């Protein structure tokens, strides 16, 4: 017999997609049965109460969680989010239900040995409910009590060699795409730099000293599988500056219909025979491709590396060999002043250990933002408030046409005094000798 009736949630158990309700019930039962005879460190009925409070929200159309208090582990200002239920008497098992963010490994590869260790810990000291993963990238452990926080942190750091992730006004846990580990399009080793910078900036990650949150995300190519360009304060998007490598034999095989286009991704419908003119050359945004007889030609200098032709013909076309990344800055979701896409700051930079050049850019951005940013002002908002020029100035980057979509629409240029011959200091009386009042 379930502790709480959940007639609304029960309706989410049917249908083909994995039901989180069924999973929560499975965990509730597992805790109740306790076949391993564990001495659970938080209430045994935590999952039942979680189902109960969620059912109440489904009934009320409103959440039943309160603002977090200040909870955390000693010496860190992030990684734990306090959470309390607003009906603690009805649902004592989730009265205190704090989240812990566990910094995921770059690339999100795991061994079962590690995951089982984490499961054992979280079953014993927490609710047994997780998010794999949170939006930022962390492993999210959902729901434990305050006395367990230090204990969990101790086990993570001592027995699992594993640290917490970020929350609050600090560097949030960086994340990356699968990268070179299993993708032929990755222009740099996303995992290597994601891990290296996460380790390098542990202090910034754990101890909030920033005006607001700050995110790094690493996309190996302009397909942007981790959406860095839409949501990272600094997005690192892989690119190259030499030529697309062409295998003309494979081009012929695509044209001849021997290899399915786009890696077979359109197999669910009959789109007719592959037409290289229509599907590749005609869709190239810069019209920099053409056929000469049976050979595909690319004017690489005009290519903007959008990835379309490479996506369509992965066996014929490969990314160039002089690789690195573009750095775009200031992306964010709409709160508060509207959404912002990343703006190109560094068109090309090599991504090579120990990443000194990249760190220099990062740190000059942080110096600027920490000096000028207002409380809860994201980098993108500061850029809008003070202008892109100011960012170029503070990062010591030379303005180039690549920085803009198009030049400004108005001539209201904020000329600086030292840019204008003779400066701004003039004698009005001298002027009046030639121009009567």
């Amino acid at each position, binding site marked *: 017999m379930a502790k709480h009736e959940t007639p609304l949630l029960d309706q989410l158990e049917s249908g083909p997609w994995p039901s989180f309700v069924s999973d929560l019930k499975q965990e509730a039962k597992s805790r109740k049965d306790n076949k391993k005879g564990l001495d659970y460190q938080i209430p045994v009925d935590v999952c039942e109460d979680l189902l109960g409070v969620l059912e109440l929200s489904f009934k009320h159309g409103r959440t039943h969680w309160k603002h977090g208090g200040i909870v955390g582990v000693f010496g860190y200002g992030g990684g734990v989010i306090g959470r309390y239920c607003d009906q603690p008497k009805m649902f004592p098992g989730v009265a205190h239900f704090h989240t812990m963010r566990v910094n995921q490994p770059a690339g999100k590869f795991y061994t079962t040995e590690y995951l089982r260790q984490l499961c054992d810990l979280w079953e014993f000291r927490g609710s047994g409910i997780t998010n794999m993963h949170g939006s930022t990238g962390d492993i999210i452990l959902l729901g434990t009590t305050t006395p367990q926080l230090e204990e969990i942190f101790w086990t993570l750091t001592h027995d699992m060699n594993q640290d917490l992730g970020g929350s609050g006004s600090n560097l949030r846990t960086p994340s990356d795409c699968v990268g070179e580990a299993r993708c032929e399009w990755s222009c740099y*080793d996303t995992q290597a730099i994601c891990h290296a910078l996460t380790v390098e900036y542990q202090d910034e990650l754990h101890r909030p000293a920033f005006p607001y949150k700050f995110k790094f995300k690493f996309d190996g190519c302009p*397909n942007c599988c981790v959406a860095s360009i839409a949501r990272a304060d600094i997005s690192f998007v892989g690119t190259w500056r030499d030529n697309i490598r062409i295998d003309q034999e494979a081009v012929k095989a695509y044209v001849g219909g021997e290899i399915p286009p786009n890696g077979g991704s359109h197999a669910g419908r009959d789109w007719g025979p592959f037409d290289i003119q229509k599907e590749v050359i005609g869709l190239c945004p810069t019209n920099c491709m053409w056929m000469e007889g049976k050979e595909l030609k690319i004017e690489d200098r005009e290519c903007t590396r959008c990835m379309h032709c490479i996506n369509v013909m992965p066996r014929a076309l490969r990314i160039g060999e002089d690789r690195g990344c573009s750095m775009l800055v200031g992306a964010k979701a709409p709160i508060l002043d509207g959404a912002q896409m990343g703006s190109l700051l560094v068109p090309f930079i090599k991504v090579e250990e120990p990443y000194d050049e990249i760190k220099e850019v990062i740190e000059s951005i942080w110096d600027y933002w920490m000096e000028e940013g207002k409380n809860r002002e994201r980098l993108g908002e500061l850029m809008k408030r003070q202008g892109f020029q100011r960012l170029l100035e503070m990062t010591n980057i030379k303005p180039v046409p690549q920085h803009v979509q198009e030049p400004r629409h108005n001539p209201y240029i904020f000329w600086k005094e030292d840019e204008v011959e003779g400066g701004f200091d003039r004698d009005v009386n001298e002027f009046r000798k030639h121009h009567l009042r």
Partner: protein
Amino acid sequence: MAFISSGYNPDKPMENRITDIGPKKYDEFYPPVIKNNKGKWLYHEILEPGVLVHVSETGDEVYSIRVGGARIMSVSHIREICDIADKHCDGHLRFTTRNNIEFMVDSKDKVEPLKKDLASRKFDGGSFKFPIGGTGAGVTNIVHTQGWIHCHTPATDASGPVKATMDVLFDDFQNMRLPAQLRVSLACCLNMCGAVHCSDIAILGYHRKPPMLDHEYLDKMCEIPLAIAACPTAAIKPAKVELADGTKVNSVSVNEPRCMFCGNCYTMCPAMPLADDVGDGIVIMAGGKVSNRITAPKFSKVVVAFLPNNAPRWPETTDCIKKIVEAYAAGANKYERVGEWAERIGWERFFEKCEIEFTHHLIDDFRDPAYYTWRHTTQFKF
């Protein structure tokens, strides 16, 4: 239950403390075929929905079976994932950015037994535990936020609408009939922890009533200047308020016509709750993308201003999404994303084809960028 110590001594918190060690190093977790071929991959192919092969210049191949997962996962479920990975994949697996799980094997003969095993597992309620799919020109898993299960500011649930939507779009998770990939995302409030603002279809929780003011407690629970500063439209002002018993307290007043219901004040001040059973609901946005492929990344546009929180299955929301998906499937050219299709045919046609009513709410009136979304040409379609 008796408290069991991990070894931590609360009297001496710094004793043997380990901090700032960061995450586990990624390469500890690579399966051998990944370790041996990293940076050497030549090409890939999707053999069938949910099954990819990557081929290396060494001649090695890795077969990845992608399955959907609810982002909320119990340890029992994760252990089952581990059992499968131990049985078929030598104890390795990975998760994707979109909450899918990828089981990798190093030869083709291991694919069928793995697929069969995955497809055979169901929850007691009848849903698949590990549906195979989410590749190519189809719908993959929905990235989403916490919603009513764990967040204090949501205007809708997350896991519920996601489950309901994925049930409706399930065929397209396991098929690749669409013109291009179609990314659906959900954020349960405007904070958009899920960054849904660049998705083909975004489901966004939104409040529609200004905050209630808990005058008696406001000054005790909040820093009034922070609450005032939190408002992006300067709708909040300090106010002296007389309570029913005659006592005067410091509080705030809200200029209600200026409120855009973002909830930022509530984030700063718990005495200003916005949540409401009929005020809250869902905004549907469409036409965004993050890829630089062919056209630049785009923001999603608001196409439906409000749909009710009709739990547990949000039928108005799933109907609307299904209509957009079907109109897109029927009308878009091969490789065209939802936003590219809408721009090619014109947004006036988009509303017609998706059978969505256009209302004044959909015309931008928020600050400077609004102007750039109005029509500045005589070119339009009747």
